[in-house]
Structures are given as C-alpha cells and as structure tokens.
C-alpha cells in the first residue's frame, strides 16, 4: 500500500508523526513502543464495504478506508478508530480516566469493537432454525458452540470467556440496540459515544461520567492513543498517551527528568490554569515512569499486538492503584463484509482468538484486583442475519454486548430476544434492538461506579437495570 503523496496517510493508530525521519540523532529511545504501523498490518477484509451510507464507490485497493478516510473526525474523537474498521486485524486505542476518588468505584474498561461486530456468530442463537437457514456457510454449528443459558452458545474460539461464564463472571446481553438508524459507522459511533441521539452534544458519555463523579486530578482522564474517542471528549480533563511506556518527553534522552524539572520551574509561581496543567503533566510523567512493569512470565500470556499491549497497560495501571475509573480500548477490524469465515478459519476466528486470549490473560494478570474491574465489550452495531455472497455479513442493527467483571452476575444470558422471523427483524434484516445499550452501561455505572443520576450522562434515556451487576 502506498502512502498518499500529499497527506499524512493512513497511520491512524500511531503517534509517530513526531518521530524523526532519520535515526541519525539518538532519538530512537523516544519512539513510541506501540502497535505495528498500519502498513505492516494485514489488509484485506474490506472489498465492497459500503461503510456509511455514502455513495458506494468500489475503489478496491484505493478504498478510502485505507487512507485515513475519517481522519478528520478523529479529532473530536468520534470515529477515533474508524480507519481501522475493516483494514486492520487489530487496532487499539485505549483511554484511561482515573481519579483519586476511584477507590469507591470499579475501573470500568470499555472495549469498542470498531466496524460493527457480527455478534450473531459470537453469542449464537443455536435454537433459531432461521439462523442456520440464512447462514448456510458461516453459521456456528450448534454442536460446536459452547453452551450458554437459554439456548445460546459462544463461538468456540471463546473458550476462555466461556470458562469465565461458568465462573459467573461473564454476562452476555443479546439484542442490544442504540438510537442509531443510519447504519453508517460514523453516525452509529457518534450516537453511541455521545450517549444520546442529539447530535449537537459535543461531549461523550464517559466524560460526563467523570464530570458527574467529580473526577479531577492528574489522572482524571488519561487516554492512550493519539486522539480522544468521542466518548471521552468533554470538559473533564484528559491525559493522552500512546502507551504507558511512551508517555514522556521526546528528544531529551538521558535528561528527561532534568527537562521536566526545567519545564516545571518555568511556570513556578504563575497563577494560571496552564501552570497547574504543567505541574500535573510533570507529575504524571514521573508517576507513569515509576509503574512496575509486567513480569515477563505474565506478559507472555497476552497475545502479541496492540490489543494485548493495551490490556497489559490497563492491568498495570489498575494494579498501580492510581485510582483509575475508566479505561477504553478500541479494537478495529470487525467490518467483515468479506472473509468472515467459518469456525475453522477466517477473520472472525482470528479476531475472537485474540479477544479471548487477551481477556483471559488480563483476568489472570489482575488476580484479586479483578474484583474491582468491569469490562464492557460493545460495537457500533451488529450485522445482517443473512450472510452475503462473500462469506461475510453487512451492516445491521442489534448486537450482543459482553460484560465481565468481579461484580457481574455472570452465567446468565441477559436481554429479551425478539426472534429472527421477518416480522421480528430490524428493517434491513438484522436483529432488532430490545435492550438499549445505555441500560447495560447505566447499570454498570450505577452499581459499580456509584453514579446516581443519568440525566446528564444519557440525557434522552433513563437506564433500566437488567440485574446483571451486584452493587459494590
């Protein structure tokens, strides 16, 4: 893939614009130690994607998605990871929001599956004949599915999650909907992350959680990756980093501490909010630098790549007890119009393997600390019931969410199931939404993060608890 001649190109997941062109100066140590560059990632799940409702132009290899198609929107964070939808196997962004107050709350880890995941092949309705009729090639056979409550079954690649389900730590929620009706990645993510159908709302729901909780301070919102997801955009302060390892000054080599001290002294005695930010920044650089590394033996259990690294960093920060209330991780590559594949091969299998291995390692790594962590997996939408002609599926509406954590009443499948009859399906032939995603988030926040009012967080939806979490 060639880089565009006049643009920053598709390197949407690295903060490497600052990396020196040449390595002649001794700056290599400043290189962000993050995920492999876009160009090194496998391509190829994307041909024919009609991502977004805009006029379809099949550009093949020149697909705009590969060229930072939505680059600009990342500024506001909305589609921070949109560029990763179909192209990258895994693209991660992760954001942390942390606060001194967090001792009264779980760390809520929101994992966004970018691209619209086909949850029908993840939390499989094995009791629905229609599912097997409509998916002659890609359905998960009933015999292969890992049995859940109510006749559902997990994709066989999710053995680790199935174990957590058995331990009562994992709660799938089926037929989850959002207010989005466009089935456009952008619009759907915007709506989802704003937490409201009001598109003029400039802040994200997670940021409003921080505001509602009054979380402020050096770690009140730490975001890893180069840009804030819309969910974290807003007035609560944000700390951005592309990874625990690389949050720091570039180009100062062996005098980083001296430089930080120098910066701080330049602002000494100044009465200006900027001075506070500078002192906070210097403090954050120092604190981050002191966090214990993950032992090699544990690190090895994580899958290679961005998702594993992100989870590893989240675990490090949880264990360091910096008072983190929110962390977000983005995993791209779920827009499987093609080569979604079957249980014995294809993109879905590979993606789920990584998710399963990553989360299993994460839970094991956290050990006792997992009691104070809740993980939510959500995508911008689900996909069509019917498989398409390319061993894939197209944009749909309803999806399944996965919630796991120490305070989750797992071992049950939650959410009303609308069925898969023509009448029950969403207009474009996908699962209808019966449970609003904010019901799930709202319950987690209320019970695990001591959020008591949702009028600002979800201004046009009053969350109704499903009973999937225990109060902290």
């Amino acid at each position, binding site marked *: 893939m060639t880089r565009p001649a006049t*643009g920053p190109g598709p390197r949407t997941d690295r903060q490497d614009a*600052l990396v020196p062109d040449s390595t002649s100066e001794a700056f290599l140590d400043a290189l962000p130690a993050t995920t492999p560059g876009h160009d090194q990632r496998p391509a190829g799940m994307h041909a024919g994607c009609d991502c977004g409702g805009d006029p379809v132009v099949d550009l093949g290899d020149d697909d705009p998605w590969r060229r930072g198609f939505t680059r600009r929107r990342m500024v506001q964070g909305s589609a921070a990871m949109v560029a990763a939808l179909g192209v990258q196997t895994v693209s991660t962004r992760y954001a942390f929001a942390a606060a001194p107050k967090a001792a009264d709350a779980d760390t809520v880890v929101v994992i966004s599956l970018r691209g619209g995941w086909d949850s029908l092949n993840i939390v499989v309705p094995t009791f629905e004949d229609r599912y097997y009729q409509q998916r002659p090639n890609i359905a998960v056979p009933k015999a292969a599915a890992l049995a859940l409550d109510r006749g559902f079954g997990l994709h066989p690649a999710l053995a680790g999650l199935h174990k957590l389900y058995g331990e009562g730590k994992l709660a799938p929620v089926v037929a989850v909907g959002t207010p989005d009706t466009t089935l456009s990645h952008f619009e759907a993510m915007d709506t989802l992350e704003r937490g409201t159908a009001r598109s003029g709302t400039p802040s994200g729901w997670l940021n409003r959680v921080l505001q509602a909780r009054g979380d402020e301070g050096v770690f009140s919102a730490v975001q890893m990756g180069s840009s804030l997801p819309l969910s974290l955009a807003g007035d609560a302060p944000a700390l951005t980093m592309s990874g625990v390892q690389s949050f720091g000054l570039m180009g100062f080599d062996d005098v980083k501490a001296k430089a930080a001290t120098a910066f701080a002294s330049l602002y000494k005695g100044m009465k200006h909010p900027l001075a506070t930010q500078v002192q906070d920044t210097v403090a954050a650089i120092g604190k981050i630098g002191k966090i214990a590394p993950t032992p090699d033996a544990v690190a090895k259990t994580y899958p290679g790549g961005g998702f594993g690294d992100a989870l590893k960093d989240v675990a490090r920060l949880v264990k360091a007890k910096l008072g983190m209330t929110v962390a977000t991780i983005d995993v791209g590559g779920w827009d499987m119009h093609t080569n979604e594949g079957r249980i014995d091969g294809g993109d879905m299998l590979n993606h789920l393997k990584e998710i399963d291995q990553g989360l299993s390692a994460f839970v094991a790594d956290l050990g006792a600390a997992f009691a104070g962590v809740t993980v939510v997996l959500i995508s911008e939408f689900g996909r069509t019931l019917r498989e398409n002609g390319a061993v894939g599926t197209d944009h749909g509406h309803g999806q399944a969410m996965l919630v796991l954590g120490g305070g989750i009443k797992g071992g049950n499948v939650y959410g009303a199931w609308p069925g898969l009859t023509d009448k029950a399906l969403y207009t474009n032939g996908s699962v209808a939404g019966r449970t609003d995603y904010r019901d799930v988030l709202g319950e987690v926040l209320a019970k695990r993060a001591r959020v008591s009012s949702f009028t600002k967080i979800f201004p046009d939806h009053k969350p109704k608890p499903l009973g999937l979490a225990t109060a902290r």
Partner: protein
Amino acid sequence: MDSYDAHPRTGRRAAAPAAPSRPRREARSTPEPVFDALVDPQDPFRPSPPSRRELREQEATLALAERREERRPGTMARRTALTFAGSGAALVGVAVATNKAPGEPELDEATRNLVAKPRTTGMPPTAAAPAGTTRTAKVEYQTTAAGKAPKPVAVTVKQPPTVLALTPAVHLARRATWGPTSASVAQIKKMGAAKWLEWQLKPSRIPDPLVAQYLKGFDTLGATPKQLRSWNDARSKQDYWYAHNQLESAAIVRAAWSERQLFEVVVDFFHSRLHVPAHIDKTRDFLNHYDAAVIRKHAFGKFRDMLWAMITNPAMIVYLDNQQNTKFGGNQNLGRELLELHTLGVDAGYKQADVAAAALLLTGLGVDDKTGAMVYRPEQHQTGAVRVFGTRYANASAAAGMTTVKALIANLAKHPKTAHYLALDLARRFVSDAPSKRLVDRLAAVYLKNDTAIVPVLRALFASPEFTHSVGQKYRRPLENAVATMRVLGVRRGDAGQFAQSLGDLRYWLEAGGQSPLGRSTPDGYPDFARPWLSSGGVLGRWNLDMSLVGGWRKGFSQPNVTKILAGATTYGAAVDKLFVALTFQKPSAATRRALLTFLGHSATTKLSPQARAGDYRLRVQLPAVILGGPQHQLR
C-alpha cells in the same frame, strides 16, 4: 438523586422521548411538518431539548454555585484588600470581576464609570513589569468551570499581571500575526504600529514570495466542485483526500510564511466563525472553493457579503443539509445555525419559531447534483409570510425566493445582536478570553456604523486600550503554538520532495492535539478560549512537537539555525540570554535563567567554546525546546 433533572429553562421534568429522537443534524428521511410551527402552537419542535449550550450553561451555573459555597468567608475582602494595595481605584473592577459569577447583577453604569475609568490613550505601559513579583495574589486568568467561553466582564482597562514583557510591538505581533519573528517585530517598530496595521490591512499590495513558491503545485486551491469532480476519478486513486489535504497544508503554509499575516489570522478566524469542516465526505468537493470564494474573498470585506457568499455556497448548503430543506419536508440545520452560529448567536433570544421561519425562507436553496453548483429550485420553495426575529418577510412568490434570502441575510447581518456576537468573537480572538463588555459594545457600534465592514472593526480593536493592556491573556492553541514555533525558529521549507509529507505529518500531530487546520468536526468551529485546550496530554504533546521542530526531525522543514543565534556568546549565561531573547523577545527573569542553567548543568560564567556552541546538543536543541515550552511562548 436526580435533583437537576428538570429542564433548565422551563423547569419541566425532562420527559424521556417515546421514540429515539432524531439526530439534530441528521438529514431527515421522511417529510415532517416543519412549517406547522408557524401556525400551529403544537410546534413539533417544542419543547426543544436543551441545546448543548443550555446544558453547559446549566453545568456552569451549578459548578459556580458549588464553588461559591466552597468559597470561604472573607475571600472577597482579602482579594479586594490585596488589589487596593496595588494602585488605585481602577483595581476595584478587577476584584469585582474576579468574584462575579454569571447571574449576578452587572455593575450599573454609574458604578462602572466610578470604578472603571478606561485609559483613553492607546499607549501601553512601556516599562516591562517584573511579572509575578508584586501582585502574585491576584488571578491572572478568568476561567470557567464548563466548556462555555467566559462571558464579557465589566472590568476596567488594566493590564493584568503577566510573565510576558509588555513591549507593544511584540504584543501586536503576538496577536496580529501567527507569531512574532525578529523581522516582524523590527518592522512594527520601524513603521509604527498604526502604519504597520494599515499596511497589513491591504494584503493585496503585500508581495508574498515564499507562499507563492511553496504553494506551487497546490493546484486544487479554490477549485470549483465541477473542477474537482472532473479530477476525482484520476486523483482519488492516489489520495482520496487530495483536495482537502492540499487545502489544509496550504493553511499551514500561509500561516507560517505569508507576509500577509493579519489577513491570514482573520481568514482563520472566519473559517472558525462560518465553519465547514474538512475531511468529511459531504464537503469533499466543496471546501476548496468555499475557502477561496467565501472566506478569503471577504475576510477584509463586509460581513454581509461574506454571509451572502456563504449561504449561496454549495459547501454550507450541503454541509448543513439544506438540500433536504424543501416545502415537501423541511430540514432546519442551516436555518438554525444561520441564527445560532453565523449571525445572532445562541443567546440572542430568538425562538424555535424564528429558526423554523428562517429555514422556511431557505427552502429550495440547493446544489446541482451534477455540477455541484448552487441552484435555487423555486418549485421546492415554501411561500408564505413569516417573521424572523421580529422582521416580517412577505415571501409571496417562489420566483423571488432568492431575493427574500438576500433580504434575510442583509437584515441578520446588520442586526445589533449579530454585531455584538461578532464583536465578542473578534475581541475574544484578539484581546482576551473574557473581553470587557465595554469594548464589545464599542466594536459592535463600529461594525454597524460601517455597514458591516470588518476592517474598521479591526482598526478600532487594535487601537483600543483594552487591546493594549491585554498582554499575555491568551493561551496559544495547538495550531497557533506550532506555527509560532516555526516562525520564531525561522523554519523554512527543507527538502522540497518531503515538504508535503512533512506538512502532512505536522497536521497529523495537530489532529492528535485537537486542532488540525479546518478540522473541527462540528459547525461551531474551534473554541477560542483556553479551557478546552488545557490538558496534560496537550501540554506534553506541544512540548514534543516543539522539540521535533527545533530538532529538525521532519526533513521537509529546514533545521533551525540556532548556532547563528548563539553567535558571540562566550559563556553559558550569555548563551541562555541570547536564546531566550531570540525565542521570547524578552530577557529571562533571574529565576528562569537559573532554571535554564541548571538544566544545562553549567554556571552562568562557564566558558562556552565555539565547538560547544555549534555542537552541544543540549544547548542547541534541548534548551530551545525547553524555552518554547515555557509560558513566554505558550501564552500570547
């Protein structure tokens, strides 16, 4: 729990909508009775959900109320006493403003006159105040709890304490350009501020060789939708965003290297003011033309003309969905933003019915699918008399629809609320985050008196004592920091073959920092006050960016010649002084000097050899980066 669930304005409990409410800026797929609002009290848009501004206002009020409660008794008295210890009655205004919260009564005119005697001379205090030494007890900056910009304050004209030297020429260069250079400061000093301004206000007479040279090959600037569409097939294969990438890079090139600095600052201002975002699909074929035909063409003209150009430009029509605004089914996006963002301002007091009426007048204003040109379709225009904010439009014939729109634009442009809103925005850009109400009133009057012409407002602004005494009251936003750094370092184009890529990389960083040129994704443009830009990640990001520019890491940009700045310095103390003056246009304070020497690990008198001058990485690269990260560069 849920104590603040009531609607902030009406006091009603916010009812959960039965169905998912439609996204506000969404093109509506089914016809809806937009215009019933005009005759039907059951306006489908009433009660309107609180706008984001309303929500923020509410939050700000709540937060302020909380802070007031936290405020210990005696704080006010203590502050007042401290300010009195300063110098005279004028400072009372500062103390009052410090403690004034929105909702508290404004000072009445008499009190204002008593406490706020504005200096009538445009002359600034010339002595560089030893900043932070005598009045550190006072706040240097008014901030807000929420994301809403600080309101204008009833405050006297008085230079607040600042760590920046009060040199008038440098102050003018910090505000009227994208960042002072030694050349621009010298030029202002030589010509005098007034003459320099007049020179800058006639940009077409100013040669602009570097920009001409660097933009050679940027062939899409100003291109019409029709032209771009004829090129898209061929060029999208190389770069889907070829036109926007050029336009955004050109924005940096012009900001950094144009001699027409004030013009480029004002262009940036109006891009934010009448904002159409880059890098969204809707605007892909339209923005380059919009930039040239609307913003650049009218930046120094009349606001009325700019508005007319805007409303008839396909970019805004498409961006705010006026294509879908027909008599068969309305879309109020453009009508709403026309009132809220482009003219009257959200606080003007207009009602939803005014929005609906404005939208009605705009029905039929669309874009030709094939050519991408603006087209008016009378058959889609809804006729019938309406009132927009008090003005009646007969709107009798569809054939005369455009004439009605022109009248609407003319009336909105010359409305006092528009004058105030624009004046406040300009004052916020050029003076301070919370400019004085008195200044805003004055600028609004100038605007109205001059038939919406922008240049007279700028003249009045730069001549105002409020401007003079606002040194250091603005925090550079990410783009402003990046460009100011390039300018002060004298960065030029480096390897021409890598220039485009380096500009792209710079934009990529700016995007991560939240301010790529033209990149704001919502129609309100980038906020022009400090609060939203204050974050630890942002601070670290700009330190790292400044380092990359000092270090010459991007080969498309030239390596700054720091050795030249250091010429003649024989001790480390002298080197620090020379660098600091070159980068910040002022001498370092004793404490700053000490801190910088500590960083270098040398004493002031340590001899500096010529070899060290040219080769000492810490002195040549790291020290400038530290200085640029300091408040003397980050504030303006």
